[in-house]
């Protein structure tokens, strides 16, 4: 197998150019897909027979919840890579993606809370999923806070890596513990309703919006990583050329 791509990935310059090629298409294509999915879901999917129209929140809620989790997984991997292989781009990834993940977790919380009002009659219950998303949000805040508080870059990177990694190990434990705790005490009515498999016309728009959000966030991540790379490599010659080059 040819590993040269992997070593190239370690090179900020190569990454910067690669991301320059793929970043914008991803962002705009993702946004388009997302809008299509949401528009479709809002306007054309049939209403749910139990929840009526409030279920339409699903088209933002689920993609965002899924992404919040995926992003954290990414952080954990990047944390491990930072500590073990000390690849230059891994901490850049952590710094760039943590805020994206935090926003996703935040939207998941807010959309879930709003959705809860008509369906459960309350904004918040101490349900397993909700609690674990809340914790996830806290984890993101921890990573962001540590990046922002520590001015020394090397230290900040290490610290953020430690937090991301430990958080990832902990995430399944939290999920499990919370689910277990909740099933002991929560009446089943609070569990997310297990509906029969969704009809196609409900499911397709969801697929679109989920896919769209993924691509959108990937693009954003590339942009943010580019920013970070520029900042970190500001002393390198290629950055100088890059910055001074585009229309002085």
């Amino acid at each position, binding site marked *: 197998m040819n590993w040269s791509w992997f070593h190239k990935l370690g090179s900020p310059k190569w990454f910067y150019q690669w991301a320059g090629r793929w970043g914008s298409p991803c962002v705009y294509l993702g946004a388009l897909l997302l809008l299509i999915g949401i528009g479709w879901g809002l306007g054309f999917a049939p209403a749910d027979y139990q929840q009526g129209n409030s279920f339409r929140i699903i088209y933002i809620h689920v993609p965002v919840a899924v992404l919040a989790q995926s992003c954290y997984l990414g952080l954990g991997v990047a944390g491990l890579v930072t*500590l073990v292989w000390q690849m230059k781009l891994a901490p850049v990834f952590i710094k760039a993606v943590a805020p994206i993940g935090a926003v996703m977790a935040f939207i998941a919380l807010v959309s879930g809370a709003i959705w809860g009002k008509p369906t459960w009659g309350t904004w918040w219950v101490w349900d397993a999923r909700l609690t674990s998303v809340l*914790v996830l949000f*806290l*984890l993101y*805040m*921890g990573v962001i*806070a*540590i990046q922002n*508080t*520590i001015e*020394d870059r*090397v*230290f900040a990177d*290490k*610290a953020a890596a*430690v*937090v991301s*990694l*430990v*958080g990832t*190990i*902990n995430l399944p*434990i*939290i999920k*499990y*513990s*919370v689910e*277990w*705790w909740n099933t*002991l005490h929560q009446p089943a009515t609070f569990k997310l309703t297990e509906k029969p498999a969704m009809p196609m016309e409900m499911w397709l728009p969801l697929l679109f919006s989920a896919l769209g959000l993924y691509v959108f966030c990937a693009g954003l991540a590339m942009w943010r990583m580019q920013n970070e790379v520029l900042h970190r490599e500001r002393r390198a010659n290629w950055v100088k050329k890059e910055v001074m080059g585009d229309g002085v």
Partner: protein
Amino acid sequence: MNYRAFLKSEWLGLIRRKQDTLNAILFFVMVITLFPLGVSPDASFLAPAAGGIIWCATALSILMAVEGMYKEDYSDGSLEQWLTSSLSLSWLVFIKTLVHWLVVLVPLVCILPVLASMLFLPMDLVGVVLVTLLLGTPAMFFFGSIGAALTVSLRRGAVLMLLIIMPLYIPVIIFATGAIRAAQLGMPFSGQLAILAALSLMSLVISPVMAAISIKASVK
């Protein structure tokens, strides 16, 4: 410097200072007495909630005890000395955390029966609470140690510390109180205890390594 001398000095420091320890204990007592005062002094409210209250108090006081664990060592230059010695930083962290655990836990365990009876916890449950404490608190200390190490060099970085540690404490509290509740209902609870023990073991392994990385990064 060698490991034995280090262990002895940590021990001596905690005994000599007393304050940190006593602070943690006092905090513990205070949280527990606040509940009957602030919420309700009824046995019907307190008895079922007792396990939870005790564990919340424990978590908070451990947090207090652990928070500034390395702060003095940072400001008086001891961390630098740890790094220049040829001893393994992970072992030093391990020893220090273990000593802290012992010094806080023993008095806490000693006053537990008194406090438990103030909360109308049935005597036969006190044993269960004790076991959960013994199995669960190491995880809290060791995870806390990571947070403390990460934030030593930050000028009062306790917020971060809380943010980082809180998610790590939640499973411990859930399983511990779960075990107590199961015991209250007469159900088996060895599963929860096993998980608690597993969490503590995991923390024992991860934490010294992670804390050592953080300490190393914060000496500048």
